[in-house]
């Protein structure tokens, strides 16, 4: 009996560690190879240098696209929150004709293949005269990230105890005070978690940006993708490491603000 239990424990332990390693290894390899002295990407890295980071920092295309991607992710996140939160509230709280359809439409970008979404958006934005503009890119990324806001905020709102709102109202809170003093503070973890999902999704997206970004509007993932077509040096790894760092920084920042355990 004891033998079987010990075996099971060992087996689940092994499986667990395989999963951990499988998840962590690709980014770790990228980070490690960014320090290699070789002129091509290799793992394990040979020697140690920060030269590739210097090269990346000197590269105007990379730095411009890093800036663009960050701006884009921030603007898209804010807009998606502003549009998605009231939408989620309507879906959770109101009963209106076509509610199911609206819900399905809001979540569709998550299930429709991104290429399909990209082609559709390209046509719509061209028709609107917004193709290859920052505004067009923002619209596309809002569409991309909206489902995350709607899903996360709908879940938060579903769990929200309505009697807290009633308590606030009976304590003389005007509707605006109810939102500011009760609803938002309690929903804050949900808002932050939605923000993380949005930021990371937008920041790492390549399909939509590749279709819509031409000329000066090249996001970082697209820039990396283009770069890899003609060279394969550790600058790539250095830039990719920057992407990882930015993403982690956002998650850690939010974690400090709200606590991931409360958030998810």
């Amino acid at each position, binding site marked *: 009996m004891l033998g079987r239990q010990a075996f099971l424990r060992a087996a689940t332990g092994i499986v667990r560690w395989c999963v951990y390693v499988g998840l962590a290894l690709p980014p770790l390899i990228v980070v490690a190879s960014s320090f290699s002295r070789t002129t091509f990407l290799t793992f394990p890295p040979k020697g140690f240098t920060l030269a590739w980071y210097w090269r990346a920092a000197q590269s105007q295309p990379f730095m411009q696209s890093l800036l663009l991607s960050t701006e884009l992710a921030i603007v898209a996140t804010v807009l998606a929150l502003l549009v998605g939160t009231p939408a989620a509230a309507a879906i959770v709280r109101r009963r209106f004709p076509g509610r199911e359809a609206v819900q399905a439409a809001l979540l569709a970008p998550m299930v429709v293949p991104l290429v399909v979404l990209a082609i559709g958006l390209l046509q719509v934005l061209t028709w609107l005269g917004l193709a290859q503009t920052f505004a067009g890119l923002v619209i596309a990324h809002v569409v991309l990230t909206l489902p995350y806001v709607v899903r996360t905020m709908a879940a938060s709102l579903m769990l929200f105890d309505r*009697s807290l709102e009633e*308590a606030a109202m009976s*304590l003389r809170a005007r509707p605006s005070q109810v939102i500011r003093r009760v609803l938002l503070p309690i929903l804050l973890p949900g808002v932050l978690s939605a923000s993380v999902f949005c930021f990371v999704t937008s920041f790492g997206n390549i399909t939509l940006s590749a279709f819509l970004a031409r000329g000066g509007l090249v996001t970082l993932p697209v820039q990396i993708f283009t770069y890899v077509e003609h060279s394969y040096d550790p600058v790539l790894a250095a830039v990719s490491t920057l992407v990882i760092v930015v993403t982690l920084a956002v998650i850690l920042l939010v974690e400090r603000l709200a606590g991931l355990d409360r958030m998810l």
Partner: protein
Amino acid sequence: MTGIPRSVLSLRGLAKSYGATVAVESLSLEVARGELVCLLGPSGCGKTTTLRMVAGFVSPTAGEIWIEGKPVAREPPHQRDVGMVFQHYALFPHLSVADNVAFGLVNIGMPRAERQARVSEMLAMVELADLAHRMPRELSGGQQQRVALARALALRPAVLLLDEPLSNLDSRLRIRMREEIHSLIRRLEMTTVFVTHDQEEAMALADRIVVMHRGRVEQVGSPDQIYEAPTSRFVAEFIGLCSLLEATVTDVRADTLVVQTSGGVTLVLRRPAVRVTQGESVVAVIRPEHVTPASGGLANQLTGRVLSSTYLGSLSRHRLLVSGEELLMECHAGTLSGVRPGADIKIAIDPARPCVLVTDPRR
């Protein structure tokens, strides 16, 4: 002020229906200053809906709500002069105890110094001054309850509404909190409407009980009126234990009635306030304590067979069979200690105490 007692809260023909479902059917009620009124009834009787209409969370289908002489039925909740304690307290989880209590004061823009004084006063009142900086999740159920009460009272509302505030506490704490709330409300002379499904709670707290059933008011009266003189079969059965004996009136005298039960027992009972005629069908409401072991001289001497006995500490309760009808009897535990099920005992029913219901053919 004018010498005429004016109601603080007045409900006039208040009704709520959801489609074809009637939740509350034309309820009228006047609550005087400092009065503690309890809405009592089983779940789904409309008591909570009524309370929520007063608070403004449910808009009535018809009728009026007046608070301090002002019609408020169309006003939003934040413009009504009521304080509410919720069943699950609804404390704001992100605010400390002190901030919860201060919440309403901030909303009305009370200056900081005055606000702090009021919060301290409220917390002292519910004996929670030491816990001012705790978060709600760090408090016990009874403490949360008291914070909820302090928060609702901080704005000094005209009417305090309590929605089953004791239902989440264990039984010992419930009785203690019940007494605390009671003495606090009395001390503040708060006009209070209290919702409960627990008849003991209603009895212990209320000046007046409104018994509700299926959206209708069954009876309004003081606890002893409701218990001693129920006006319907529902009220008789819902409040306390009783045996209901169907009977026919055989004689109407000055103060008493003579009835014959369907089992053939003849009883002399107190004459009800309503008009009763000979031959009419009535129901005798006999509380367990109206039945006593027989001791010579009393009217209504009967013989009953003991079906079962339950020992309840200071009391014992016996189920008896009297001429084919079941009768409950309660007496001091020592009185019938040797009696076994199956034994025949002599009993008497005090003629002055049971209440007689006139059977309404429409019920």
